[in-house]
C-alpha cells in the first residue's frame, strides 16, 4: 500500500489494489484497513473525514470523544468505527475490514 513512514498516526490513504479500493488508517499507532465501499449505499467510505463523535449521553447533554477513531462516509455521513468497521447507529451494519501487515517498512493489506 505504502511505506510505513508515510502513514503517521491520524493519517489515512486509499489505494486501488487489483480493482479493489481499500483505505488504510493509522489510529493512534494501530493500522486498520477498510474496503472503500460503504455498506449503506456503496459510497466512498474511506474518503470521508476521520473524526471523533458525540458519545452516548442522557438528557440532552453532549460529550465529544473517540477523536480519530471514527470515519464518516464521504457520501451520506454515516459514522463507522475504523477498528471494527461497525456502523455506530446499527452495529449489525459493518464495512468490510482486512488484516494489515507491516513487512520491511512497507504496509500490506491481505485481501
Amino acid at each position, binding site marked *: 500500500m505504502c511505506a510505513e513512514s508515510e502513514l503517521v498516526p491520524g493519517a489515512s490513504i486509499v489505494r486501488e489494489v487489483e480493482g479493489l479500493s481499500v483505505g488504510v488508517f493509522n489510529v493512534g499507532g494501530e493500522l486498520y484497513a477498510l474496503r472503500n465501499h460503504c455498506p*449503506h449505499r456503496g459510497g466512498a467510505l474511506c474518503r470521508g473525514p476521520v473524526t471523533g*463523535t*458525540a*458519545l*452516548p*449521553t*442522557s*438528557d*440532552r*447533554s*453532549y*460529550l465529544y470523544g473517540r477523536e480519530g477513531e471514527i470515519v464518516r462516509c464521504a457520501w*451520506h*455521513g*454515516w*459514522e463507522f468505527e475504523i477498528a471494527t468497521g461497525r*456502523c*455506530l*447507529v*446499527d452495529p449489525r451494519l459493518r464495512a468490510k475490514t482486512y488484516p494489515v501487515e507491516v513487512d520491511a517498512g512497507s504496509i500490506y493489506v491481505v485481501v
Partner: protein
Amino acid sequence: MIDWDVHNSWSAAQELLPYLDPYHRDALVRGELPGGRHSFPHAHRPWLHPEGFMRTDAVPEDGGPPGSDYDLLREQLLDRYDLEYAILTGEEGIEISTLANPSFASALARAANDWMLAEWLARDPRLKGSLVVAPQDPVGAATEIRRLGGHPEFVQVLVSSGAQRPYGDPFYQPIFEAAAEVGLPVAAHLGGQGGVNANPTGCGPPTFFWEAHALLSETGMGHVASLIAHGTFERFPDLRFVLIECGVAWLPALLWRLDADYKALRKETPWLRRLPSEYAAEHIRLTTQPLEQPKEELHLWAALEAIDGERTLLFASDYPHWDFDDPERVRLPPAWRERVFGENARELYGLPVAAATGG
C-alpha cells in the same frame, strides 16, 4: 379638529346581511361564526368551515350545539354503535392554547375539566374524559395534571396539535413529567390553529378550509419528530403520545425519513438509543379519523402495515363533526378490527372490559 380614530359599531354582525352578496351572505347565516356573547374565549383559526363543521342531523331539539345533548349523543353514537367506551375530547376546550395569557388559559382548563367531570363523566360509565391543559403554561398544566389526573374517569391529558413550538421542546417538559407521574398518555388533537400558535403549514397560510384541513396533519408530523429527537421517550419510558385527527398515512413516510437522517447525524442527539421508527412503534399512537381514502384500499393498508397499524391505530369517529367516520364503514384490514376498534385503546388507557351498556 379632526379625530382620526372613532369607533362606531353594529349591534350585531347580521346587520351586514343586506349589504352582502348572496354567496357570502350564506356563510354568515349558516357558516361557522367565531365569537359572540356565548362563545368560549379563544383566538380563532383563520379558516372557517363554510357550512359550520357539524353534522346537521346532530343538532339537538333545543337547537343547541351538536354534542351538547347527552341523550342525543347516546342515541346517535353510544347506543347506535353499541360502544363500550367513548373518550370525550370536548369541543373548544383545547383552543385555550391559542390564548396569549397562560394564566387565563389554565383557569379555563380547570373549569372545563371540572365541568367535564360533573356534567358528563358522572353520567354514564361508557364516557371517559380527556384532561385538557394549557400547553403555553407548562407549570400550570402540570399542576392540573396532578390535581385531576389520578381521577379514574380521566384517561388522557389533552392539548391541541397547534402549538407555539413542537412538543419535544424542553419548554413543555413539566407536562410530560406530570403525565408520566400520574401514568396518563398525552394526546394532541387537531386544533389550536391561530392566536399565539405557530402557523400550521410551513410555507404560509393556505386559503380555503378544505385545503387547510387536509394540510393540518403537518403539525402532527412536527410533534412526532420533536418528541422522538429530544429523547422524550428515553426520559419517560412508559409515556405514550396519541395524535388525534391528524391523519395516519403520512407516518410511515415520515419515519423512513427520520430514520435515514438520524443515521447520518446521530451526533446531534446522542441521547437516543434506538431508531426513530422504533420509538414510534412503542410510544406513538394515532386515531384513525379521518382515515385516508385512496381509490384502492390496499394502497393504504400497505402503508399502515409499515407502522404496525394493527397495534398503533385507535378507532375514532369524531362525532358529531362533518367528517365523521362511521365505524361500520371504516375500511381497515378485517384482521385488525379487534385491536383497532377496542383492544389497543383498552391497553393504552387501562380500561376494564365491558362497562355496563345502557340504552
